[in-house]
């Protein structure tokens, strides 16, 4: 089953992370769970990609990290969106919409 799941397009992962984080501060594990849930198990984010991406986005200044207690009382690293991150998310979503629209147009025309 794992093989059939789509490989995350590089770059797309960044956008998905930003989108998920946009709902409110959230830790890494929850992000991977959220993406898997919302995409109805279509996307499964490997830890080997998730954490480097989080660190990259944090370094870019799009995410802001803070150590806080979880509901279960454990300390975890929570990520939140910065203003620049929100701007970036808007730009990437715009790009994505234009891209998918264009792809859809071509596919329809080709039928």
């Amino acid at each position, binding site marked *: 089953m794992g093989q059939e799941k789509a490989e995350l397009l590089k770059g797309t992962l960044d956008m998905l992370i930003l989108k998920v984080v946009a709902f409110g501060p959230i830790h890494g*594990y929850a992000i991977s769970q959220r993406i898997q849930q919302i995409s109805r198990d279509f996307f499964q984010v*490997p830890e*080997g990609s998730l*954490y*480097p991406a989080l*660190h990259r986005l944090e*370094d870019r200044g799009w995410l802001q990290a803070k*150590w806080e207690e979880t509901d279960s009382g454990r300390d975890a690293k929570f990520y939140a969106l910065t203003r*620049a991150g929100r701007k970036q998310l808007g730009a990437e979503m715009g790009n994505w919409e234009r891209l998918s629209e264009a792809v859809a147009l071509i596919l329809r025309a080709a039928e």
Partner: protein
Amino acid sequence: MNGWLGRLFRKRLAEKRLDAELRFHLEQRVRDFVASGMTREEARRRAHLAFGGLEQVKQDCRDARIENHIQDFLRDFHYAFRSLAKDRRFALIAVFALALGIGATTVMFSVLYNVVVDPFPYRDFQRAVILEMWDLTGPRETEARFHYTIPEFLAIREQNHVFEDMIGNYTLDVLYTDGKGGRLFRGGYVTPNGFDFLGVPPFLGRIFREDDVKPEAPFVFMMNYRLWQTEFHGDPKLVGTTFFLNGKPRTLVGIMPQRFNGYNAGVWLPLGLTPGADGTVFPVKDPDVIWAMARLKKGVSLQAAAADLDAILRRLAQANPGDLYPAQFKIRTRTLLDFVVGDFKKTLYALLAAVSMLLLIACINVGNLLLARATVREREIAVRASLGAGRTRLIRQLLVESFVLAVAACLTGCFFAYFGLKGLVAIIPRGPVPEETVIGLNPAVLLFALAIAVLTTLICGLTPALHAVRGNLQVRAAGSGKGAGGSFCHGKLRAGLVIAEVALSIVLLTGAGLMMRSFIALTHVDLGFDPQHMLYARVIPAGPDHFEMAAQNQLFFEQVLQRVKALPGVVTVTESLGLPPLGGAGSYITVFGKSLPQHADSMVELCGESYFQTLGIRLLHGRLISETDIGSQRRVAVVNQVFARAYFGNDNPLGQKIRFDAFDQVSGAPHNTYFEVIGMVADFKNRGPQESPTPEAFLPYSITGIGERFIVARTSVAPKSLLPSVQREIWAVDPNAAITSNGSIQSLLAEEVYTRPQFGLITIGIFAGLGLVLVLIGIFGVMAYTVALQTHEIGVRMALGAQHSNVLTMVLWKGLRLISVGMLIGVLTSLGLTRFLAGQIQGVSATDPLTFFAVVALFLAVGLIASLLPACRAASIDPLVALRYE
């Protein structure tokens, strides 16, 4: 906590947190697996499997951050290249201007360093000093003695407290015979410690030892690399073989390396200072012929050394009253470096000042270009900032752009420097630069120039960038990209920069102009005779000691002169002791029945009957030296005007009697003899073209047996074409006679007198020319920019009825005003600065009005040309287009 300790601590903390973050993830996963019904063991295994390697993920997280930076960096570079390529004209001019500055500065600094700081391959040559004895009672107070007698030398060597080591040497040609013919080598007689003193190891064999001058020691000598190559084809088996030098067998014990020309000789012979030792046979009795060079002990100053020597020589002077010591004298020690390079240093420093101005002009030019660009780009920067580019990011981008520019300029600059140096070395005068000097690119200097270039671009690129970024970016994006806001003050700054540029360029041009005037004056000096069509050859008859062979020498020269005179193309020919106008021998004199000042002196020329005819010197009084005077060795003399005026006053020169002290020390010359003045001739230059004529007496050459003479001929054809036949005639008389130098007087003058000012002139000329080109570009840039800014305004004017010519004059006028301010400042600065050039220029005043006028005229022309193009563009503006321009 802020130093490395702080950084280390933060790094540790970051590592710890990374570990905690990933472990938290693992634990959550295990908890979820357990919740879904797995055993704890299984859940842990599965979680770890899904995670892959923990360490690998950690490394990827760290890399992700670094990758960010590399990506940004590459993107910045990419952006810089793209934006520079878009504005190719700007980029090319900026790189070219900076590269010129870097190249020229590097070349000049390299030459200065290699010539003035590090010219010799010798050990500790900075502490090597020459001893000079200055005569304070002499007529010109500039007379110095560099030579010492053997007793003096030994006294100094034994009694001084300031020297580590001291050597003595003198130069005398050595006759080499190999059975096929004689050749004369420049011989350097050196005390055995001479080579150890300079600290250069031999290329082959060994250097001299103290044993080499012991009375019973075998005769030895050493050879110069160049002589070894040219005369003996670099045969290494030569070491240990025996040569016949001055008729005596001598063994070659060593050959010095290529980069060694100590004591300036082809062969070196050991010089012993005790009676009976090798090398003590001098051609003159009781000679003061030993040059002394010494190495100061560490920490001893030149003054302290001079004071120490002064005491020694004063004791000697008291113990030996006589002609050797002037009534008042002073010892000076001069470094070898100063002695060799001397005044040429000043030329180099003047050129260094010139090249610094060129560099400054280049930097100003680039700064100006960058400012103009920044003004135009304010809008672009504002737009990018509003699109979310961070302030630091923008600044970094502009920095990278400046950096790319600087690096390109540096590479081009190195290229220029490499070829510039080759060109400069080709014209550098040989006289003041030691033969061993290796002039190469100096890495330290190159780094210095690079630093300046990088600094210039960074400052000029960043200042406007900061200005643009600091302001309210959104507002600027809304406004016009051209001419709004900050550009007004940029405009003033740019005008100021152009004014500075113009002023600097004027200073450079006046310097170059003065040097050119001085050079023209020098090459057109009236020598008192015509140096064109004159050839010379220095001839030494065969024989080990020609002082003892006066009669043979006389016969030899008579035959040579006859044969040379018979050559087609030769008009007249004579022999002489010195070579006019470059000087000759001198002597202290006494005039019978007159009290002259102490140390009255004169130059002494020994000449044949056709001497005056060959040179073309006018007789003013009495008669010239005749064939009979020469044939019967009569004690007669002809003097020049300066001589008569200085020593006879208003008295009739004819019939006066002069004694020449120098002859008393020469064997084979008449001692204690008075010469009767029979005539007076017009003055001509006898100490080089730059000096005014000094007193000179002309005597029949037959009165001494001196064998070394010049043959000087006036020709009707190009002198150099006759050299081979002259040589043939000389050897036809005696194949063992040696010719040590020959050529035309004109080319000798060029070599000896003109090369130094020519070097300065060409170099400063190039600098001034380059400066002018850069300034032309600068003026053009500012004017074009001003016109572009005013397009709208010009359009309005023209729509309201202004003529093309009105617009043209308006722009030209603006350009001229800019230039005039710069010129005024430049001329005033030049008037203040050219004083420092006074040592470099002769025959023309440092404030020569003609030069200043020419420079101003040239600059006006250049300024007009530079503003004409933008003015024409302004005049051709279409009002309709211009009004829509905003």
